[in-house]
């Protein structure tokens, strides 16, 4: 193994663990891709009332997060929503009313 290999990429064992963690959360929640798609569309609808978002760049997935209550991890919906422009306060409110 050369020195350069150290900078190459994550070990395959770590890759396997990370993949499994994600996979099992959605397996356990038995959340189908159709449901995920529906959630995604609803999120776009709601947030679009207030700001312009990049709906193609939107990424939503079920992951795990630390829970303070039982010192373990709990499933969480993680959404990465790129914002194009934030509409100013009064506009957003009036548009929200209209919708």
């Amino acid at each position: 193994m050369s020195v350069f290999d150290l900078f190459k990429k994550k070990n395959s064992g770590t890759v396997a663990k990370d993949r499994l963690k994600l996979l099992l959360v959605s397996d356990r929640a038995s959340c189908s891709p159709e449901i995920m798609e529906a959630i995604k569309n609803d999120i776009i609808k709601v947030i679009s009332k207030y700001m312009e978002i990049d709906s193609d760049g939107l990424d939503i997935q079920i992951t795990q997060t630390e829970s303070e209550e039982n010192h373990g991890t709990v499933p969480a919906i993680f959404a990465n929503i790129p914002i194009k422009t934030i509409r100013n306060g009064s506009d957003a409110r009036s548009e929200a009313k209209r919708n």
Partner: protein
Amino acid sequence: MSEVIVVTSGKGGVGKTTTTANVGTGLAMLNKKVVLIDTDIGLRNLDVVMGLENRIVYNLVDVVEGNCRIKQALIKDKRYNNLYLLPSAQTRDKTSVSPEQMQKLIDELKEEFDYIILDCPAGIEQGFKNAIAGASRALVVTTPEVSAIRDADRIIGLLEANEITKVDLIVNRIRMDLVKRGDMMTIDDVVDILAVSLIGAVPDDENIVISTNQGEPIVGTDALAGRAYMNIVKRIMGEDIPLMNLDTDNGFWNRIKNIFKSK
């Protein structure tokens, strides 16, 4: 008081049958009266792993259908006279037996044996349902691979749904050389992902291939896997045995020692 343990995994080929044979033999070595039941109807295997394939007269389906008495179908082990095998039927299919019939059979065996160990078929269909019907405890066998772990997770969920709360994990075929290199998940990784209690880890040991070839369980021998199985057996009986270091025998000095030992 007798204990009924199902050995299961979801995925095939991870070592359920080998685990059943070794755990059962280990318990018998420690003077427990044990019966092993092969519930994989149509794909009988536990008999060959135990080296008892030539002694089969009746099988599980014969007992359930009333073609023979239980005693007639039980095969006494070659090495330990407190160890018995109830073989599966090779020419029938999984629907030949129902969970209710399994439950009834196990209730009868409970009067006679300390431990009843059920070798579960792969999958989550009828065969799985039959195997878990009478069990109060489960050993889930997995290997440190994504496919086996995903299936184990599903199985653990199904066991819980069927009110089998005592579930322990065996991580099989660990290769410490790969773990060290970072190319295999560690035992801790697997336990962390599946979130069940670990009852033991078994190294990927060529001696298992050899002992299976010969129809001899490896438990009780000095091989690393043999010692790992004996530790699991003791933990099943409630002893508090620390996890052994699976790495020791592959160390540089031990290898040199082994070279001298073998001469």
